[in-house]
């Protein structure tokens, strides 16, 4: 039996963070919304098991990242459901910095986007990112370092020298 209350609590406490993560990984708000809602839908379908998962939020992020890499095929059903439920509400446009960052992120490999999002938006340590992405710590450091250098080259006003000095340990 699935416990709706515990699912709702989990959803309320994590959905904002998850949407930020999905936005940074997918690079498009509507797409991120689809990805994140699909991930939560999957969590709800198996909430009997999920509710005892030791790290349900990490599980959701994994689903979001996987869906983002293969989104069109997998999200067909969810998109159809959204279409049936009516047009999306009018929302305010994203800020200029957000748009610049998303444009820059599109030029990075998916793994680097994911690692950077976990670092900047989810506040995970290098070790935690390595565990979640199931790669060595050195690989994460390399991804973060290269990703930041690349972003510095693409974003206005970011100094590559400062990045070197403040680089992720």
């Amino acid at each position, binding site marked *: 039996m699935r416990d709706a209350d515990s699912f709702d609590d989990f959803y309320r406490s994590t959905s904002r963070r998850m*949407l930020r993560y999905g936005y940074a990984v997918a690079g498009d708000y509507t797409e991120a919304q689809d990805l994140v809602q699909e991930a939560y839908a999957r969590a709800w379908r198996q909430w009997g098991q999920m509710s005892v998962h030791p790290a349900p939020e990490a599980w959701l992020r994994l689903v979001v990242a996987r869906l983002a890499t293969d989104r069109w095929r997998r999200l067909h059903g969810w998109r159809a459901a959204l279409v049936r439920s009516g047009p999306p509400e009018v929302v305010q446009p994203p800020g200029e*910095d957000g748009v610049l960052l998303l444009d820059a992120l599109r030029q990075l490999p998916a793994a680097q986007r994911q690692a950077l999002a976990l670092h900047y938006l989810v506040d995970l340590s290098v070790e935690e990112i390595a565990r979640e992405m199931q790669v060595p710590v050195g690989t994460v450091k390399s991804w973060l370092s290269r990703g930041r250098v690349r972003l510095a080259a693409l974003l206005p006003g970011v100094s590559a020298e400062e990045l070197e000095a403040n680089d992720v340990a």
Partner: protein
Amino acid sequence: MSRDVSDFYRSLAADVDGRPLDGPGELRRRTDRRARVRAAGGVFLVALLVAGAATGTRLVLAADQGTVGPPAGPPVPTVIAPSPSPSTVTPSTVTPSRATPSSATSSPKATPTGRPSATSSGTHDPRTPRSIPDRAFFTQPASTMAAEPTFQQGGEVLPDFCGADLDGRVVQTRSRVLTYHLTPDQPEGTVPYGTYRNSISIHRPGRADDWMADLRRAVRECPEQETVPGRSDRHRLLPGGDFGDEAVLIEVREPAWEAGEPAEGEVLRLIRVIRIGDVVTVLWEMGWEGTSSDRRQVDDYSRRAERAISNWLD
């Protein structure tokens, strides 16, 4: 003025925060509605195929079979009956019916009825307990435990084998959920390999072996069961192994799913049922996201479960 990458991420987060998702209730309702729509669509498709096959058969045989009925209405689970003859062309489907459990006099016995027999590991008959303490449940190896076991009220302890009624002689049942890794010493937060529904039941004195016989019969009489329209689980009995007084191993082959969508291939589930005197324990390996049961792992937990119950009953 020099800026930092984190400033840009903060802006991106602020953009998102201004556009929150729907509430959890709406998401749950939408998800459940989607599942119901799929189920209804599948039933319609099955009905259409059956109707089409029936129509085709009628044309070939040029015989008047009457009008083809309308598609099935409510999305109820259907059971694909075992084919009575290899030459049968049209697949037959029936609505769920309660399989009649065999009586003590009619069912083939795995072991003689009467007093519970001695355990394979002990030298005396185990007593019939009145309640099930925590220590009756085995302890998971710490190196492969993904989460603390959680006891559950209610819930199924076995799949529904075509509606077979197997609960009549059970006095008391306790069940819990186990979450495990296949590989020891996984980092915290690693996605588990699978979960178990692990139950222990006390049966009326001398009736547990009848229940085991009924279970075997229920599995044999339900070789295939449609769980989602158009997609069926297949069941079969495997040699139960040397556990307790008697044991059953049920193989369930389920169609594979990926990201909530039907996928090619299938996954294998194993369910081990062990009887020790009047006590029966079930280890139902339920997987995690498309994993298949690992036979050695199931055997290991089965051995641990048998030992814990034997120690409890001694």
